[in-house]
């Protein structure tokens, strides 16, 4: 600030005296210093409007060095992203840095850039977790759709690390989006089987899977059936749906999604006993499969909660 003041004063007075120099030779030589002082004063006055001499300059290198020294946890997400980008720019970046950057970008909602960072990370070192994060970002980017690109990335992740739960879950989601509920159920059971019972993700995944698999409006067969008879009352439609489901399950009882749907419809109709019966049937048929217990427990919990909500 002192240096600034000195420099500015030198510039102002050198310029002012240089300009007024010719006047010193004339008759009105008093005018020279007066005009010089006036011009310098005007310059300082105009400068003062909006001036911030107290604010030091902040070249990017210095800002970057300050970030590099700081504790990453004390920084905001935007600053952490920049910190990682600075490291990458400096050339000392490994796959880990790109991976962290990709995650931060994905959390910040900058999916397109995150995808690019993950691609770089995978280029440096193919890793199951990074493939999985990459594919999840692709899903976010496509508003929840499991695209072909995401699917192949998940398949690669599953190949590299079969114990990773995400790939089978999202591949199941992809199958579900394609209308293949059996394949979705199989993959989700596989996911749940791979998780310890007390894993917090287990309950979340089980709940999500139970919810999706039991949705009557997402069952392609049911939807097709109802489309044939458009002019019915809602009660008639539900009745027809239940009837159709029961008929189908009596022919082909190896349908986890079907039993879950039936239980959900029955619970919604207030027929708790029938709902429990349907779940019981599912337990009998699928209980032996690893992961099914968690799924059925989640379904039961959700249906009971729903009833509790309705009673309240």
């Amino acid at each position, binding site marked *: *600030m002192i*240096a*600034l003041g000195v*420099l*500015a004063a030198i*510039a*102002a007075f050198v*310029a*002012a005296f*240089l*300009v*007024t*120099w*010719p*006047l010193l*030779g*004339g008759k009105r030589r008093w005018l020279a210093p007066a*005009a010089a002082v006036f*011009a*310098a004063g*005007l*310059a*300082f*006055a*105009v*400068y003062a*409007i*909006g*001036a*911030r*001499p107290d*604010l*030091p*300059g*902040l*070249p*990017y*290198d210095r*800002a970057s060095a300050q970030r590099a020294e700081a504790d990453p946890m004390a920084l905001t997400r*935007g*600053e952490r992203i*920049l910190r990682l980008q600075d490291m990458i*720019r400096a050339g000392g970046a490994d796959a880990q840095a790109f991976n962290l950057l990709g995650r931060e970008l994905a959390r910040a909602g*900058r999916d*397109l*850039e995150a995808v*690019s960072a993950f691609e770089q990370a995978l280029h440096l070192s193919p890793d199951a977790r990074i493939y999985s994060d990459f594919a999840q970002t692709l899903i976010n980017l496509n508003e929840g759709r499991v*695209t*072909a690109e995401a699917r192949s990335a998940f398949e690669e992740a599953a190949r590299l690390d079969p114990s990773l739960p995400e790939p089978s879950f999202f591949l199941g989601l992809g199958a579900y989006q394609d209308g293949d509920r059996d394949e979705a159920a199989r993959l989700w059971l596989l996911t749940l089987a791979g998780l310890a019972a007390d894993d917090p993700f287990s309950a979340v995944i089980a709940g999500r899977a139970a919810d999706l698999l039991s949705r009557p409006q997402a069952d392609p067969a049911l939807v097709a059936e109802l489309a044939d008879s458009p002019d019915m009352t809602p009660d008639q439609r539900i009745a027809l749906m239940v009837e159709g489901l029961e008929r189908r399950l009596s022919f082909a009882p190896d349908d986890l999604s079907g039993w879950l749907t039936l239980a959900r419809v029955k619970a919604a109709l207030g027929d708790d006993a029938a709902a429990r019966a349907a779940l019981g049937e599912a337990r009998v048929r699928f209980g032996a499969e690893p992961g099914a217990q968690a799924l059925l427990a989640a379904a039961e919990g959700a249906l009971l909660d729903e009833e509790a909500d309705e009673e309240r």
Partner: protein
Amino acid sequence: MIAELGRFLIALALALSAAQMLFAWAGARDPGGAFARAGARAAHAALAALVVAFALLTVLFLQSDFSVAYVAANSHVDKPLFYMITGVWGGHEGSMLLWCLLLTAVGAGLAKFGPRGDPALRVRAVSVQGALQLMFLAFLALASNPFDRLDPAALEGSGLNPILQDPALAIHPPMLFLGYVGLSGVYSLAMAGLIEGRKGQPLGAAMRPWALGAWTALTAGIALGSWWAYYELGWGGWWFWDPVENASFMPWLMATALIHSAIASDRMGAFPGWTTLLALLAFTLSALGAFLVRSGVLTSVHAFALDPERGLWLLAILIVIAGAGLALFALRAHRLGAGQGFSPTSREAFIGANNLLLAAAAGVVFTGTLYPLFVDALGGRPVSVGAPYFDATATPILAFALVLMPFAPFMAWAKGGLRKAATPLRAAGLILPAAIAGLTALALGAPPLAALGAAIGAWAVAGAGLDIARWSGAVGLGPKLALAGRAMAHAGVGFIALGAASDASWPYERMAILAPGESMTAHGRVLTMQRIMRADGPNYMSDLAEIAVTRDGRAQGVLRPERRYYPAADQTTREVAIRTGLAGDLYVALGEPRQRDDGAFAFEVRAAFNPLIWMLGFGAALVTLGGLAALSARGVERRRPG
């Protein structure tokens, strides 16, 4: 500290401009005296202060100092070095700094190279220029300071607007500004002439080189901007009659009229009042252009930030410039004297007709550009005036001026006489090419009006050819250069007309959605999408398509249009691929990707064929070179002994 020093230097330049205005005003009575010298020194010191300020701003860009608001809004650390530097004048504040820098450069230039033989006029002009500098520097310092700070500093910059990251656009604004601001020198000289009570002839002589230099820069600037619009905006057009374009076209029309009428004033003392008025109006329209572009009062396809406060500042400056100029003209025009008489077939008459038509064209462009503003001010339903209006008004007026153009160089001053100039050989040399061009265009299916345009273009080019044929008649380097300059500029305008006519005659555009392996036909060529790949740059991500072009089975190369996404600015741009040939440009732009039902990705591909479009660029280059030749002719003349 660097930023604050820059801010101080702007303030210092403002104070020095005030000193320049006052000292030079006091010094005009005694042009060799102390006050006059002090005024000239102030002009030089103001220029020095702004040169350093500009250098400091460049340093801030190179440092990516995001504690400076303007740097944060217009730069990014990942930006290539070249665009880091061009970002200095890429935004509003920086471009105003450049404007002020050029304004002080003209001030210092007037002090050093102003009319030698008339020191009083020179010193007075330096004073008027000081007043102009003072107004624009006040605007810069108080309402658009590029050194304004951010506290806390921004984390990262937004990056320069990606469509501005382009080599042509990096030099387009400085060129255009050089033209606009060069006209400020003409304005100052005209004001000084009115104040000092000069006659029209010496004033015309004093303004001539400044007008010519400003006009040359303005021509180059407009041409670069148009070229940029052609390939960067991705629509294939080159002139849209957009308000921002009109804002530069109006001063150009005025400057074009001025360089002709100033010749007549200088040589024959003709049009004394009119030349002075044109000089005042040319810079007024430049300032109007700055106001229209920067205040955002008009809808435009070119974009700049809009800010009502800045608009008010610029409006106030505009009113002072126009008001002071016109008021002084009304009071003092009679002192310019009456013009010399001339016959209706003299060269002066043709220059008068040229001026009348150019002024009329500027008038109709002005009306169309500002009409939406008037309607808005009167509370009417919002309207816009588009290209059809300008095509129906300005184009025929300018075409008529082109019809007259080839005659003027053959006419004698003052006395004239059509018979002597229009020999049968010359008439044939004009009519034949025009007829051939027009009939050829018609035969190739051009609409009649476009064919007429082609005929007029050929007519103008032929006229310039007849003019240059008198090469041996011009004795000495100066006259030869002057002749070459005139012929090149006139031929260039003709080529522009030819290019415009052919562009209007055979518009060709096809669009298709192509996935790799698919192809489309366009203008007799088969375009095959070979593949789409990622081609990321330092600060953008890009989809690049490789499109192979074949004609009758023969490969004609690969076009690589791109679609870029700039994350810092969150913007997408398209980089078109152009294959230039003698017959015209094959112009391919890559549009949005879309997913087919089977999940495959395909891209929208737009292919256009712009026939003979090179004539536009060639013509503009010729006009600019013509201006440079005429300028150097004056330099040679001046250095000649005696």
